[in-house]
């Protein structure tokens, strides 16, 4: 038995609609399971929260990127037109800040966008082409019409037969072992 426990990644239950998956997730969390994840072909409201994953870190990176970009943009223009090579352009002041706004703004946006994209990738640990859950035959439908809940073996409460029973209790259509 312990052998098996080490050789598997976890147990995966399949559900045939989002709501069952949501209930199952809530149930599992209530039962004290922590190391688990739910899989669905589209975002499901409250699902991640019900799994205890409710922090939003992306906004911070976006803000950071935005500020960085804006400062870089204005800084560059200031340095070029006032410090490095001040030139008399049509009698305008060296620091014609109103004319520096567009570039400042655009660079802010650009960096903010990078912030959003990168943080999404990093927080989701992407790219990650290999993952144990892909070992499950039926998991293919997770990207079209399948709904899955997977409790991982690392979870302290995990006990193969017990957990299997528990999952089946939450109207799973099918429960399979996920080999690691």
């Amino acid at each position, binding site marked *: 038995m312990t052998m098996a426990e080490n050789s598997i990644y976890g147990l995966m239950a399949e559900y045939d*609609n*989002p*709501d069952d998956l*949501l209930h199952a*997730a809530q149930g599992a969390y209530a039962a004290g399971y922590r190391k688990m*994840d*739910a*899989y*669905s*072909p*589209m*975002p*499901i409201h409250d*699902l*991640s929260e019900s*799994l205890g*994953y*409710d922090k*939003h870190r*992306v*906004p911070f990176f*976006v803000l950071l990127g935005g500020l960085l970009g804006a400062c870089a*943009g204005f800084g*560059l*223009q200031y340095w*070029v*037109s006032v410090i*490095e*090579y001040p030139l008399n*352009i049509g009698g*305008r002041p060296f620091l014609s800040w109103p*004319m*520096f706004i567009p*570039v400042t*703004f*655009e*660079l802010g*946006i*650009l960096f*903010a*966008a*990078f912030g*959003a*994209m990168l*943080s*999404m*990738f990093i*927080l*989701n640990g*992407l*790219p*990650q*082409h*290999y993952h144990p*859950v892909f070992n499950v035959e039926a998991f*293919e439908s*997770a*990207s*079209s*019409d399948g709904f899955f809940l997977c409790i991982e073996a690392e979870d302290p409460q995990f006990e193969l037969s017990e957990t299997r029973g528990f999952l089946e209790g939450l109207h799973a259509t099918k429960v399979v072992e996920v080999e690691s």
Partner: protein
Amino acid sequence: MASPAPIQEDPTAPAPVLGPGQTYTTITQKISSIITSRTTVGWIVAVALALGLMQCFLLGVTWLLIKGVGIWGLNIPVGWGWAIINFVWWIGIGHAGTLISAILLLMRQDWRNSINRFAEAMTIFAVICAMQFPLFHTGRPWVAAYWLLPYPNSMGVWPQFRSPLIWDVFAVSTYFTVSLLFWYLGLIPDFATLRDKAKKKISRMIYGVLAVGWRGSAKHWHNYEMASLLLAGISTPLVLSVHSIVSFDFSVGLVPGWHATIFPPYFVAGAVFAGFAMVLTLGLPIRAIYGLHDFITDRHLNNMSKVMLATGLVVAYGYGMEQFFAWYSASPYEGYMMQNRMHGPYQFEYWSLILCNVIVPQFLWIKSVRLNPYALFVVSMFINVGMWLERFMIVVTSLHRDYMPSSWDMYHSTLGDWLLYAGTIGIFLLGMFLFIRVMPVINMVEIRLLVPRKGHGKKPDHDASTEVSAE
């Protein structure tokens, strides 16, 4: 899978955004089948035609690089011609995509879900076409290609940041990058679907790489939704800024007919106007050819028409304001400019512009027109042409008679002008055709959200009853 029947217009309730009887399974099958099914002859012919058109571009550019911009109808005083007209035209078209994917998302307009994907694709290819012109319209593209970028060079000189053209460089490149990111972000889960649905191993691999191992886990969705929401959030001011900056190319200048404060809003509205026209020009055929009536329903046509009508009215207001200020400013130059537009040598262009952009769109007040694909197609065609004419009026008609009567002259287009314009249309179509073949034209994830869920009564996840702003 249920073959979708055309929806009957329900006089009381607004038409649904998703045909009845569609399930997660049917949605996936229907949409991915466009890609997985075998290539049709029609598609090959279409691509061939697009390629042919694209040759015009290659020809035009080669000739241009050998001879110089003198092959166009340019002169002093008309230093800008079709190149800049086309640039503004394409950029404008691009805007609808971002508007649909970003602004309507923020407004929780779920009817956008089924059109945003190819609207975004449209944006990407339109901007690619647009970007050709600022580069090739310069006298020396071989240096313009990098001298407009701020980089530490051995000359110790830098770009001149007070020039709207530099603003353009930053605005357009940012716009392109952000649109690309946003588009790709939306594609990742769909790539995952295709990774799992594709038949050949090789295509599974390719889609797999693009899907970067997407598992659709709750955590993925958690960050994914936030990221796309924020991208939408920053794209909104971006899309507004881009066309404002494009309008600065003119309004910062002192040419009568350019130097007007109304330009930014008037250009942005014009962009959306033109953009939606183009979405319809492409959407209607695609819908018919691939039988997507369940996903692009009459509800969509209706709403898009309303958006066009609204923005069209803003544009008309813009024309009115130009007239008003020409009179109110009491500047002889402004006054003459307006007279010259209406009664000068380019009056034909001006009045056909009024016909296309002001008169024809008024038909959209009529519901039956809004719901008739054929009528709608014709109207949007008029608008496509009209918006090109608007840029012609702004660029050429303003320049050819400005301050010094001694320098007044005429502008006549040449073969060189036509080649490049036709060529970019080729590039654009080619891009769209390839896109249709290899990527889901409709965002499957977002369509799935429209499927009614039993647990939550009969309501889809998002509130479908919210009406479009134009109503």
